[in-house]
């Protein structure tokens, strides 16, 4: 039997990397098991929008906390993390959605998240390529954009500098509170084991309620200045919230390179990663409805990724009820880039018995999940 670690983490996505960094910073000995490139799973597929979302009080608490952590670290990231404080515009199509903008602003204001309402003219000035005659938008200026694989690599790098170990190219076959059994049969003993394998988590911890939710994205050639904020239709929340139908929503992000990343789609039951021409078309049509000038831009690539979705849309962070030394850090759906830093804090808080900055109960794996919809 090899050396025993304080913490053994399965998965080197952004969540595993953030947990490794946080635990190593707290002085724990850490090992990360990752079969592929760091951040090569959903982290490579995600948009990298750091965003406060208000689907439920627990979601807004987690995203707001985590965004604060990102903001506090903005200055330390190397250039390839591409942290840009672009801000979000929640775009309202009509008067009904404008009412929603007002409601949202009040919610954000109540928790100290800066947000301002833009009328139709201000919106057109802020984003001239949006279609005319939209009703307005909510601007959330401190939301940001990052390049997730390099953010994950950076966090893991920091963990390594503090003595963490990466078992690259190796794969976990079995997890228990006592350690990780690798595919090659060897065993990595540990005091605490963290399952941070994203959408793969149920294969290592059977029975947890995590399902794959497929998404498509398209990236364009470089068009600097074409879009300034991350633009999301207000209906996005409906799209993300619904657990039943396939859905698309207008979601466009300016990259630091001048490229545009266009989303988004959500599908359950699609197990394979190939492009679904039908979804891609629907998604791009939706984007063009909001931004007709997109039509003439050149797309250079499309891809898909899998979000790890839970019934109540909140991640699973903390010990399994049946094995208190086996932790879960998964189920982040479309927000795992945003919430990676807070997840890492909450994992370390629990295993070190520190007082967390926000209550952990809504995210505990043992909670009773109320399924919406």
């Amino acid at each position, binding site marked *: 039997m090899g050396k025993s670690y304080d913490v053994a983490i399965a998965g080197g996505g952004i969540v595993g990397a953030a947990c490794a960094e946080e635990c190593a910073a707290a002085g724990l000995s850490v090992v990360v098991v990752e079969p592929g490139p760091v951040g090569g799973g959903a982290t490579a597929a995600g948009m990298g929008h750091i965003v406060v979302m208000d689907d439920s009080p627990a979601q807004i608490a987690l995203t707001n906390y985590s965004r604060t952590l990102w903001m506090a670290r903005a200055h330390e990231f190397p250039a390839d993390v591409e942290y840009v404080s672009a801000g979000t515009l929640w775009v309202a199509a009509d008067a009904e959605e404008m009412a929603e903008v007002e409601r949202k602003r009040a919610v954000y204001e109540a928790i100290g998240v800066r947000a301002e309402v833009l009328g139709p003219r201000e919106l057109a000035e802020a984003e001239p390529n949006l279609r005319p005659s939209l009703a307005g938008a909510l601007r959330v200026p401190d939301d940001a954009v990052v390049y997730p694989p390099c953010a994950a690599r950076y966090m893991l790098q920091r963990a390594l500098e503090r003595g963490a170990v990466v078992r690259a190219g190796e794969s976990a076959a079995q997890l228990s509170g006592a350690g990780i059994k690798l595919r090659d049969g060897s065993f990595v003993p540990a005091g605490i084991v963290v399952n941070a394998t994203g959408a793969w988590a149920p294969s290592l911890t059977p029975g947890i309620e995590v399902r794959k939710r497929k998404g498509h994205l398209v990236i364009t050639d470089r068009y600097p200045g074409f879009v300034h904020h991350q633009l999301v239709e207000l209906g996005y929340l409906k799209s993300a919230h619904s657990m039943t139908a396939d859905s698309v929503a207008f979601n466009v992000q300016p990259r630091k390179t001048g490229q545009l990343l266009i989303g988004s789609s959500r599908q359950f039951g699609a197990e394979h990663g190939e*492009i679904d*021409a039908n979804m891609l078309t629907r998604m791009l049509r939706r984007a063009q409805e909001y931004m007709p000038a997109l039509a003439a831009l050149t797309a250079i690539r*499309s891809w898909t990724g899998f979000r790890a979705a839970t019934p109540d849309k909140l991640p699973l962070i903390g010990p399994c009820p049946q094995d208190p030394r086996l932790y879960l850090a998964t189920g982040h759906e479309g927000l795992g880039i945003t919430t990676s830093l807070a997840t890492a804090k909450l994992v370390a808080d629990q295993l070190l018995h520190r007082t967390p900055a926000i209550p952990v109960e809504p995210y505990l794996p043992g909670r009773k999940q109320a399924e919406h919809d």
Partner: protein
Amino acid sequence: MPDCDVLVIGAGPAGLAAATRAAETGASVAMVDDNPHPGGQIWRAAAGKAPQDAARWIHSAEQHQVEWIAGARVFAAPAPNRIAVEKFDGELELGYRSLILATGARERFLPFPGWTLPNVMGAGGLQALAKSGLPVEGKKIVIAGSGPLLLAVAKYMKEHAADVRLIAEQATQSALLAFGLRLAAHPGKLIQAVGLRAALLGIPYLTSCWPVAAEGKDKLEAVTLSRGERTWTERCDYLACGFGLVPNTEIAALLGCRLSDGSVAVDEQQQTSITNVYSAGEATGIGGLELALVEGEIAGFAAAGASARARTLFAARDRYRKFAEALEHAFAPREELKALPREETLVCRCEDVTLGRVRSCTGWREAKLHTRCGMGPCQGRVCGAAVEFLLGWKSESVRPPVFPTRIESLTRTEPPA
């Protein structure tokens, strides 16, 4: 309902031969190419100026009512037996019973210091520019790389009054001699080669020679060459480089055809691993004009169901394949070329990624994710082959759009229910 029996992608020699032969059997045939004129890499020229054998094939394709769809690039395969094509003014979808992939090859670039300077270009690329009007008269040109393409380009440049300083061929003299002996078994080729040599009289042809650096302030001014112990600098206006060719396999990969060794795998009827999909010409391996033609003919017959007629051409194909093997052997890029780029030399010019950064990764996917190598508009079509040569990494899967495509083209067609 399919729009045609046989759809041919690519109107180079292989595609023209395939379309003509398929149409001769009475099949309805359409042929698409992303260029305004048929002819492919070798025969492409302004309309009406195509060389004689090109004109013959183009003429007979026309005579047999091959529907010619010009300036149309295939970018996706949205449903079984259908492909999507982007034209400059719109998008269309085409259905077929059988498909022939005659997508040809592109040049292989190998990075060396200065290779991204303006006026350092592909050998075939410079030729294509000259054909479409770039004046080369009196320009000092150095041609470097490997293979018969260098000679063809030199000849063309010379005929257009360029001042071709020299041809730097990386292969050894002895490899070429051995190749020359094998050529003797191919009278047609021998004559072509001799003819080329004659036309080149006066252009130094240096074997075991390659560029080590291109220099210049805002654009190319000179190239430093190396041959054995000697290095020297040649002033020039253009440096035309071509280190062999790489098959274009994107569409084949998109359709799920099996690839082998970087080219589309085919059986004796030129059929790919997918039953109604055929492939011919350089997409199936680099072999030159004659092989492309005969493979195209076989694929055309086979795709139209005339496999007996296809069979009569097998012997000819075997001969040209032997030639292709000899060619590949003689002009294989040498190990020494791997030492040309320095750590700070760009490998990916779309995203400005240096060799040093790429080398620090463990493989192509990690390099892509962590350095953006291959993520730009060329999607690895340029750097992929270079990285494969330098580091032995194969690039990963293809997805639609396989070529940069306007968003409106991706959304115009009705999504299938």
